[in-house]
């Protein structure tokens, strides 16, 4: 087993990986940019190494600096987390060349799945259903003809992409040119590759993905599905398992399709095969394979009882699975809500600032994977994910109730968050019935359905009273506090310097 692992990431996922390392008795090395000197992941690690400036290219995306940090700190493996260099085949290869272990699949597997166009061809060969579409187009005319043949609406997306970047829905030929240009720019900027592919856009589709896991001894299992259809800006905000849509038969079929997809690229370690699912026909189509740990992996951990990060590390160290497919079961129901610093009223634009209050919910069946604490800065340099809130319960109804109370207990001041928005989504009949498709958020907001109205813009009476009273009760710098509370000797409100006014 490894003695020391460098985590080439930041935020909640870096901390989550470090927790697993500690439980396995492995030392951890954090890396950080100048903007993250005070970040929680730096405080959590056994060692911490400064990479460079805030810009990702100078820090978390800098392959040379990361490899040097690993060698300097005598780490014997690197865990890439998700995002950043986690799906970069060159990075995986560079880690290998430095005689370190990359905790993830081989560089070849990453490369094979990294190009969305090539992987689609590969999947067709492996007998995995794919969305009707075309790869390898260059000129505008080629795209135009392809779109006509597929029929609008179509989707153009980065061949090298993922996570909604470099992706555009095109409803008519008039929109096609600008969509291609924007997608190309974003693709180049995000992935260093401007190639696009085009395919049928399934408007009412669900996003259902299958977690797969392989060891280095040829064993491949799937850990069932995650339903990830609640999305805004093509990015997931609420995920759950099991999916309310799947029958046991469909689940088994999709699980086997995902294993076939992984086997086609000799996959080992954790990966996710994403499918588009059409609820009308119960047809599913391969979308892409993410060759890394997924943001929403805790949902799968909650229902299977397996610790995916433990197993990533153990597999990378050469261990064999002690279990077979038939030993793995789904129990109960899990939901994850991604708490983002973003404003639903401005089209979910990120919100930055200092966290004046950050109180996480606790309780039976509640898990919070967080990268922030009160006093931390949320900057515009990185992804605005503050925390992931995961609940587990014996069935979907109780899980929704539990998530509602947990969201209610999650207090974030200083940046605008999507907490109230997610509460409103969970409250809808559509969510309760499990029929939310990937375009639901967008359509529902367009139709003025009251999803945002329920978050009253005019503050309620109690909020007004509290805001006005706070100045009386908390403001110090005067004679003495109005409220004395002996059980709280460290009350920061008693101190002038703390009331930012």
């Amino acid at each position: 087993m490894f003695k020391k692992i460098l985590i080439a990431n930041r935020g909640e996922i870096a901390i989550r990986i470090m927790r697993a390392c500690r439980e396995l008795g492995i030392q951890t090395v954090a890396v950080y940019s100048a903007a993250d000197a005070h970040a929680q992941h730096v405080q959590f690690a056994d060692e911490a190494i400064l990479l460079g400036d805030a810009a990702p290219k100078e820090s978390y995306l800098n392959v040379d600096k990361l490899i040097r940090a690993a060698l300097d700190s005598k780490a014997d493996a690197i865990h890439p987390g998700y995002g950043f260099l986690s799906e970069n085949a060159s990075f995986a290869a560079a880690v290998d060349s430095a005689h370190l272990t990359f905790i993830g699949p081989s560089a070849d597997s990453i490369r094979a799945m990294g190009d969305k166009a090539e992987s689609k061809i590969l999947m067709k060969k492996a007998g995995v259903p794919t969305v009707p579409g075309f790869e390898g187009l260059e000129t505008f005319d080629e795209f135009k003809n392809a779109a006509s043949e597929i029929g609008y609406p179509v989707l153009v997306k980065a061949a090298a992409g993922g996570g909604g970047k470099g992706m555009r829905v095109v409803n008519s030929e008039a929109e096609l040119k600008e969509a291609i240009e924007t997608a190309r720019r974003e693709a180049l900027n995000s992935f260093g590759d401007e190639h696009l592919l085009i395919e049928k856009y399934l408007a009412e589709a669900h996003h259902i993905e299958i977690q797969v896991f392989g060891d280095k001894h040829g064993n491949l299992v799937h850990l069932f599905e995650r339903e990830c259809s609640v999305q805004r800006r093509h990015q997931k905000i609420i995920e759950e398992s099991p999916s309310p849509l799947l029958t046991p038969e469909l689940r088994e079929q999709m699980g086997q399709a995902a294993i076939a997809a992984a086997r086609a690229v000799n996959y080992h370690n954790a990966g996710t095969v994403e499918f588009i699912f059409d609820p009308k026909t119960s047809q599913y189509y391969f979308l892409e394979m993410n060759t890394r740990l997924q943001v929403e992996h805790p949902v799968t951990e909650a229902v299977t009882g397996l610790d995916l990060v433990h197993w990533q590390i153990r597999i990378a160290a050469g261990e064999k699975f002690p279990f077979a497919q038939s030993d793995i079961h789904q129990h109960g129901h899990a939901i994850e809500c991604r708490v983002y610093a973003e404003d639903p009223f401005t089209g979910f634009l990120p919100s930055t600032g200092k966290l004046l209050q950050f109180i996480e919910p606790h309780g039976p069946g509640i898990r919070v994977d967080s990268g922030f604490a009160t006093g931390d800065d949320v900057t515009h340099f990185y992804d605005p994910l503050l925390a992931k809130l995961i609940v587990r319960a014996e069935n979907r109804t109780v899980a929704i109730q539990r998530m509602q109370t947990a969201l209610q207990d999650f207090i974030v001041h200083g940046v605008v968050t999507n907490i109230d928005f997610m509460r409103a989504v969970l409250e809808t009949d559509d969510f309760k019935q499990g029929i939310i498709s990937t375009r639901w958020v967008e359509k529902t907001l367009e139709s003025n359905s009251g999803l945002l109205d329920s978050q009253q813009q005019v503050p309620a009476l109690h909020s007004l009273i509290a805001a006005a009273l706070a100045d009386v009760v908390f403001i110090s710098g005067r004679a003495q506090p109005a409220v004395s509370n002996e059980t709280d000797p460290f009350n920061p409100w008693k101190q002038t310097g703390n009331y930012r006014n």
Partner: protein
Amino acid sequence: MGEEQVRPRNDMDKNMKTTFGSQTIELNPSGEQYVASVEGKNVIVQVIRAANGRMDLLVDGQRVTAYVSSDMAKRWVTVDGKTSMLTKTSGAKQGVRHDHAGGLIAPMPGQIRSVSVSVGDAVKKGQTLLRMEAMKMEIRIQALKDGVVKSVSVAQGQTVEREQILVEVE
């Protein structure tokens, strides 16, 4: 009720009026409680406990837990899991935010990627005036109405702060 009672402070024994946006609230100390008046409606408020930005109140006998944080004139308030951001305004300053009605401001800090218009250009509602990049996303700043560009305050490559005015259209 056996709750710990909190007395209003002596130096506060007069009415306090606070305005948040369009709403004004008055707090009148009355014995060990406050009378809060909003739009002619009165409620009785008692502070049970207050610490670490959390207040437990009795409002007309109903227990209310509120979290309040303060940043300059802003107040972040969470009650029953709903968070609002209120901005304290004096009567004179009300409407300050509307001064920028024709001005397009940066929704978040970032970098200007391109500027497509110059002063004097006629623009149509929805036309993209400039593009900026923030958090690896491209954000298009579009005209809110038909008009003429009155000012352009930024150039390509420039870093901008949140709420900085970028372009004004008349």
